[in-house]
């Protein structure tokens, strides 16, 4: 079963929010939908869910030789912010209610919901009001419910927003497990590290248009080729950038990335005033590509990034 978004257009007055967007998502795959604020990501998700009517184009489910318009209840959804569940009611009541409105009996929803809660370490909070849970726990509870409703696809809009690093890492693990189990997931997030680690493919949306899309690794490799990632013993990456020549960029406080020949790297490593823990081959980060497309053009390699 595949979810196809075909040539979708949406206009709000003078603003053309979506300009012929086409995407596809299959089972067992995570598609990262990326773009700056106002790019049209949430608008696209709402069109897929049927909460917003497109001006042109269509969203179809294709599989088993049939094509049809999906219904909203076929999706598991995590919308941005804490607006997925009733905060004043318990997790169980929320699960039974939202399962019920999708036509699912309590005996179907409850065991599945409890199993997912157990997996997320929240089983003991089944009868607790949602409001008594931390933000991260609420997000996990909402995801547990979305999964318990046994949807065909998961649409997750900024699922890691406001999560602490530990919860974020847990969430990432959950997404990878779900992918292995065959769930098709559309993920929008500004947490590009998470998207880079979990997504099979990414699509960059800008002002309602898909600027680039493709398999994550291939997209990065085709953009700038392979380079070297240098892990430092101290968080001095930004400070060192000034002294290093072209081709260098910082991917974090302790990580530098170099696009260029090995000989040039070896020479530069000898001059670094910080201990180097590890050097590995790799592509630039998704964040670098994001910044290249939508902001500052980093990394600033000696060689220009290749155009896909």
């Amino acid at each position, binding site marked *: 079963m595949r979810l196809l978004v075909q040539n979708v257009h949406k206009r709000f007055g003078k603003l053309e929010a979506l300009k012929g967007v086409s995407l596809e998502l299959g089972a067992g795959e995570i598609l990262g939908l990326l773009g700056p604020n106002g790019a049209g990501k949430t608008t696209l998700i709402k069109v897929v869910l049927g909460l917003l009517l497109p001006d042109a184009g269509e969203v179809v489910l294709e599989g088993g030789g049939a094509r049809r318009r999906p219904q*909203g209840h076929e999706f598991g*959804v995590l*919308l941005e912010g804490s607006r997925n569940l009733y905060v004043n009611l318990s997790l169980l009541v929320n699960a039974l209610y939202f399962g019920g409105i999708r*036509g699912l*009996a309590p005996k179907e929803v409850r065991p599945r919901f409890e199993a997912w809660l157990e997996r997320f370490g929240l089983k003991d909070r089944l009868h607790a009001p949602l409001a008594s849970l931390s933000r991260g726990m609420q997000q996990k509870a909402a995801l547990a419910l979305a999964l318990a409703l046994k949807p065909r696809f998961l649409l997750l809009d900024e699922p890691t927003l406001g999560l602490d690093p530990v919860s974020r890492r847990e969430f990432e693990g959950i997404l990878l497990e779900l992918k292995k189990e065959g769930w098709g997931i559309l993920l929008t997030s500004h947490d590009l590290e998470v998207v880079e680690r979990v997504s099979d493919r990414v699509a960059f949306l800008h002002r309602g248009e898909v600027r680039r899309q493709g398999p994550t690794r291939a997209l990065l490799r085709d953009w700038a080729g392979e380079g070297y990632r240098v892990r430092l013993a101290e968080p001095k990456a930004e400070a060192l950038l000034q002294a290093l020549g072209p081709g260098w960029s910082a991917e974090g406080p302790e990580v530098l990335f170099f696009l260029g020949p090995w000989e040039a790297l070896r020479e530069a490593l000898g001059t670094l005033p910080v201990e180097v823990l590890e050097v590995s081959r790799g592509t630039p980060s998704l964040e670098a590509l994001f910044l290249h497309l939508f902001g500052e053009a980093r990394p600033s390699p000696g060689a220009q990034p290749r155009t896909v």
Partner: protein
Amino acid sequence: MLCWQLWSEFLLEWNLTRRYWFDTLAGLLASVLFFYSMVLGLENLTPEGLASLGLDLGPLLLVFAAFNLVVGTFQSIAYSVQSEAALGTLEHLGLARGGLLRQLLLRALVRGLQGITTSALVLLPLALLLGVRLAPAPWWPLSLLLLYLAALGFALGMGALALHFKQVEGFFTIVQFLFLPYFFSLVRFAPWMTPLPFAPGTQLLKLALTGEGASPGLLLLAFVQALLFLGAGLFAMAWVYAGVRRRGLLGRY
């Protein structure tokens, strides 16, 4: 599947009533006190009491019950839309099987049943307190149903307003203030009032609960009015829902 959608609304209502039981009880008491103080006021208006004003306590009480039911019902969908939009869960209701409209209708049915129970809980102690004797005719549920369906149609229209404007409390206050004198004018029912909104249903309920017979014409008119209101309400709601989905206003508050 539809039964689970209906069941889920009962579950939600029960949990909200349990969670906010104090406010539910206070609301009931407020209705009883509101009517009782109104009657006391009217009785003290002249030394001869209500009779000198040409008012009979029995019809007055029954019209108040009808007013309670209609006001409770007409707000139900709109307040659901408003509170769900404020909580941010309205879009999730839009993902219900069959869509938002179906789920809101099911919620309105559940709230309607709750409204009928509440009206009964207000009516019975007041009847006892004021010495009003009720003699329900066997067909009283039909009169209640027709009045309720007309109110539901009106509620759908108000729900449509809430879908578009989201906050409608101020407007509802105006409607309530208009409804109060309007309904009380139905206490002294005259034949020319028959086609007025909610008039045939209210009169039918009044006759049914006092054990009097109703003419087939009144019954037919109440039926036609209920269908008209319901049809118009459904049309308004479906039209506005399509509009907000086109304009991207559903989740906005």
